[in-house]
């Protein structure tokens, strides 16, 4: 670990971490609040050092299809955008999932729907975890809550994407993207050689040189019998991911009588709400899903036997609360508190919501 502590924005951390984890290519199109990702890459010029490609495409539709092309050859490729741009990418993301291609998508969410605002929001939870594009597919979704996690999750997302041959997404928000915090960047890992890529990705379109059968990368299958089998294979893979890759953090949960569930920047604000509530004698804890899919269903179900009520705190009109309710299955009341369209709640607002909605 290179122990040098730096101060940077979450978006900058994504860019530096991408270079350091041996990313082969970044394809993107600027949009607030994540433009610093590509700006940083363009400033650092990694094509001169690691050979990583950084390319500004003509649109988000192009970016995601460039990602598809790169991923098809077994390369470590990524894109980043914010909500409206990620909406444009949904067709391509479905194709990535259908062709079982590993890739990284970063969404630094802003207020919607439509072009909406440029301020922080978490209203793309449904889009990320429930589909977004068409078909029965899943994205491995990581939700960072600090600049350090923005840096750490790039490598992790790529590892998971390649392990399961599935696209992964980092679902961040305007707060985490724009704020500066201390960060220790991950160790530098060189890009894989062509031989290493072929060994790791025997399925990839790397040029067969008369030595093996063609590797065909496609999501198209005209025979429904075969397509059903493909889907069953995907579902088996998703089940495996659900069993092995759930990640979450518990804060002040041991003696909690009331539980907040929140991810990303909301989880940070909730942490302060817990501190304030505890100073007033309210035993408030926080469960922070780190993977939004697979969702920490079992962990939340466990707390349904311990706490009096739960509050899902999100910068949206009530999205993750549905998954919390499914996990709790009616055992205790589960309420939602949110602000919309780019307005961010303060810690006091959350404490008040606990008092009025749960107590």
């Amino acid at each position: 670990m290179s122990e040098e502590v730096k101060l940077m924005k979450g978006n900058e951390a994504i860019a530096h971490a991408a270079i350091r984890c041996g990313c082969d290519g970044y394809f993107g199109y600027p949009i607030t609040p994540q433009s610093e990702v590509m700006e940083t890459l363009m400033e650092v010029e990694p094509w001169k050092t690691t050979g990583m490609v950084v390319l500004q495409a003509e649109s988000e539709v192009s970016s995601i299809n460039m990602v598809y092309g790169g991923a098809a050859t077994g390369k470590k490729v990524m894109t980043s955008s914010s909500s409206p741009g990620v909406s444009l990418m949904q067709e391509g993301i479905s194709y990535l999932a259908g062709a079982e291609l590993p890739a990284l998508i970063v969404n630094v969410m802003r207020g919607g729907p439509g072009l909406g605002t440029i301020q922080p929001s978490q209203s793309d939870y449904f889009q990320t975890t429930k589909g977004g594009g068409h078909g029965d597919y899943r994205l491995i979704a990581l939700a960072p809550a600090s600049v350090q996690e923005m840096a750490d999750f790039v490598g992790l997302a790529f590892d998971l994407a390649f392990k399961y041959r599935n696209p992964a997404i980092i679902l961040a928000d305007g707060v985490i993207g724009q704020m500066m915090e201390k960060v220790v960047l991950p160790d530098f890992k060189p890009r894989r050689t062509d031989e290493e890529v072929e060994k790791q990705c025997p399925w990839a379109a790397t040029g067969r040189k008369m030595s093996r059968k063609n590797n065909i990368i496609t999501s198209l299958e005209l025979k429904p019998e075969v397509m059903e089998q493909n889907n069953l294979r995907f579902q088996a893979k998703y089940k495996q991911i659900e069993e092995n890759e759930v990640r979450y953090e518990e804060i002040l949960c041991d003696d909690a009588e009331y539980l907040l569930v929140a991810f990303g920047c909301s989880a940070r604000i909730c942490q302060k709400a817990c501190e304030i509530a505890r100073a007033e004698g309210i035993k408030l804890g926080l469960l922070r899903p780190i993977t939004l899919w697979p969702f920490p269903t079992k962990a939340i179900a466990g707390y349904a036997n311990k706490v009096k009520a739960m509050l899902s705190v999100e910068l949206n009109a009530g999205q993750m609360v549905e998954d919390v309710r499914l996990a709790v299955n009616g055992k205790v009341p589960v309420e939602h508190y949110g602000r919309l369209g780019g307005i961010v709640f303060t810690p006091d607002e959350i404490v008040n919501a606990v008092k009025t909605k749960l107590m």
Partner: protein
Amino acid sequence: MKEEIIIAGFGGQGVLSMGKILAYSGLMQGKEVTWMPAYGPEQRGGTANVTVILSDEKISSPILNSYDTAIILNQQSLDKFEKSVKPGGTLIYDPYGITTEPTRTDINIHKINAMDACIEMNAAKSFNMILLGGFLKIRPIVELENVLKGLKKTLPERHHHLIPMNEAALKKGMEIIK
């Protein structure tokens, strides 16, 4: 030690960069740090503000209800943030462009004529460093030496020749704050 600070004024007054230099100074002093800007169109002329937190312990929320210190550079920001200073906290403001003075009696209010001072010094771009100097005189949470290191980290190398002027401005702020 934990200091929760809001700096607010017009876009272009150096609000965000003052916060950045303060954050880097904290980093140099080994503190935990968050710097959270209002990153909207404010940057291009509206009201801009940034929340800076320096702490010995890990920082939870970068978004706050109230502040230990507010550094205020225009009337709109005074109207918005005077009420958000914690009782016993500090409000520092430049009276230039302020039409309605702060009225609270349960906080410490300090006036600093930074605009006049920077014109006098012929160093308009060091306006924000005069304010930062004033703040550090009242709330000495980081050492001057670390602020200078922070300046060096924040300014691109081609502007490093401006560091002595900024140092002079920091010291001027420490002298003139009331």
